[in-house]
């Protein structure tokens, strides 16, 4: 039962990534796209964690840390580029 919930949440999160791809395509400015990308990577991190719970392997959990943090670092880099020219 718990496994079913885990994989269902995982699939739902990937579907949300698909929804956000539309915004990434259409976003008129860089900022729209980067917001969509941030949320996508957060959803991917949560999907990874729930898949780890589904497969019963705790070693799958570690990529979620990097997924949840490094996309925001990319957002900071982009914001810096927008604010002051070339970094």
């Amino acid at each position, binding site marked *: 039962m718990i496994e079913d919930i885990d994989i269902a949440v995982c699939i739902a999160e990937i579907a949300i990534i698909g929804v956000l791809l539309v915004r990434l395509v259409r976003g008129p400015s860089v900022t729209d796209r980067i917001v969509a990308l941030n949320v996508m990577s957060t959803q991917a991190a949560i999907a990874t964690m729930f898949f780890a719970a589904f497969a019963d*392997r705790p070693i799958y959990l570690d990529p979620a840390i990097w997924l949840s943090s490094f996309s925001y670092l990319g957002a900071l880099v982009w914001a810096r580029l927008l604010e002051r020219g070339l970094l």
Partner: protein
Amino acid sequence: MIVANYLVAGAVLCLGLFTVLTQRNLIKIVLGLSLMESSTYLLLVSLAYRHGSTAPVLLSPPKGEGQTALAHGNVADPVLQNFCLTAIVIGVAITAVFLTVVVRLAQHYRSIDADDIRDLRG
């Protein structure tokens, strides 16, 4: 079933190849090369997968198995995953070199259109 992964890897490779062949923007050409690299990773990892397999890591095996049982059990192919790791490192290295070359070319020719760069043309 896993053949869908192979075909998707082939499709992404073809998309990258199409970009490299038809685009004139140098950055887009490098982006196409990155896509081709990504398809290679996908193909290697899909080749490593076996039906119902788990990661080839003996740490904290899934319930019902011990470490030695898992070593002889149903796992993915670790050698192909090693190839994929090597490919990722080489991919980021050559992307860095390509981008530096593109920056220098753009600064020299004041254009990133591949058709404008004609000094080496015969």
